[in-house]
């Protein structure tokens, strides 16, 4: 067989790929979102299927179980209402003190729920797609979280969906602090383990009183994530090889492998 068709077809295909690879970042991202949009009907169909299964499962729940759940939820609701009352009082006190000192007021969080459409099919990234886009007012770098803690930030925004880079991905490094001691460090990916819920917490000052079990929160530095979102708990600590700073491993408070719904935080 002649080798000519190989060279022609191979050359033409390589040329197409190289042109695509050389596209400006913005154009490439828009093209990615457009191509990814082809999968939206399938994601929608799969989501509807899951919903149907859940509804069927709920329909099969007995009356006794439902009544038990209602009782438990009522108790939980009362406890949460008490906590809200306490927190509202603390908030009012905080506001009065800030006014007295002339400090800037913290704006309350504005959140919108989003459904997780899918995760990154490649093994070397930790990203996901959510069902909110520019149509819903999502912007690049918007923080994404759940009730348990931080998930990540929005990187690319399409019309009806967005791409989110999760905590632990090389593209999501940020400043965090230890809740008890207020020592700051940087959250980085941890490539040493197969456990996707462990991340690194580095550049913590040598004298910091780091202990396993302490909570790590976003510090608010950098301007992307607001202060105080839970990231996870310290698992173990070691001094870096030159003895310049401490390095810890943090177990994320959010199980990133089982996300179904998230909240996007709006400024």
């Amino acid at each position, binding site marked *: 067989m002649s080798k000519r068709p*190989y060279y022609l077809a191979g050359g033409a295909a390589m040329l197409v*790929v190289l042109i*695509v690879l050389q*596209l400006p970042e913005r154009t490439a991202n828009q*093209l990615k979102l457009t*191509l990814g949009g082809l999968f939206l009907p399938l994601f929608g169909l799969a989501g509807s299927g899951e919903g149907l299964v859940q509804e069927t499962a709920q329909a099969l729940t007995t009356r006794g179980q439902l009544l038990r759940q209602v009782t438990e939820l009522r108790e939980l609701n009362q406890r949460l209402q008490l906590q809200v009352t306490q927190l509202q009082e603390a908030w009012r006190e905080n506001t009065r003190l800030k006014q007295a000192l002339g400090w800037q007021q913290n704006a309350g969080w504005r959140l919108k729920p989003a459904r997780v459409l899918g995760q*990154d*099919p490649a093994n070397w*990234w930790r990203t996901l797609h959510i069902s909110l886009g520019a149509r819903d007012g999502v912007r690049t770098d918007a923080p994404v979280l759940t009730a348990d803690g931080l998930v990540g930030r929005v990187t690319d925004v399409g019309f009806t969906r967005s791409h989110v880079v999760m905590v632990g991905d090389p593209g999501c490094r940020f400043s965090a602090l230890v809740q008890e001691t207020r020592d700051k460090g940087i959250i980085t*990916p941890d490539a040493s383990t197969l456990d996707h819920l462990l991340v690194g917490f580095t550049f913590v000052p040598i004298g910091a009183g780091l202990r396993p079990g302490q909570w790590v929160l976003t510090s608010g530095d950098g301007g992307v994530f607001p202060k105080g979102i839970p990231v996870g708990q310290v698992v173990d600590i070691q001094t870096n090889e030159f003895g310049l700073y401490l390095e810890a491993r943090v177990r994320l408070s959010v199980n990133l492998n089982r996300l179904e719904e998230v909240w996007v935080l709006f400024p």
Partner: protein
Amino acid sequence: MGAVSMSRINTLGLLGLAFLAVFAESYLRGMRNLLGVQIDLLPSLVAYAALTGGLPTVVLLALLGGMWFDSLSANPLGISALSLLVTGMIIHYYRGLILRDRFYPQFLIGLGASAAVPVLTLLGILGTWTEPLLGWWSIWQWIVLALVGAVFTPACFGLSQWFNRVFNYVPAQEASFRADREIDRGRDPHADH
């Protein structure tokens, strides 16, 4: 399939399968939660196409499959298409030397393709000065990817045989008996009496 040449419907079926495979890799998390690895079926499909189909099928599958994959990933757009294309074209070039109708070569070609594609993709990503998440556990992921791809490639052949039986036109084989060639033994009706 092997001996049967690839028709347009086969190419379309293969593209449809690649589309569904990319969707499943993004949507389903079972393997990721169980083994810590998300499997990738595109290298197996490209290996199958390279062993049985024409060059346009290989190129089309590599380009579209790679682009679809990258559109749902943080990979630079086109990087997976490049690695799938290189792998597919090499297999297609040497397929005359491969006993492609046998299980063992199919398994080995699937293993090689599924091992080569992630390595080529990662080399491409590192070439763009982007830092992917790599560690010692990446070797485990690589082994699982290669093994799953190796098993899936012969499965593609079986699936394709079933697909051909169901959807492709197979001409009815002519029977050896033909009425106009029947030898009529006995008394000759045209003989002079």
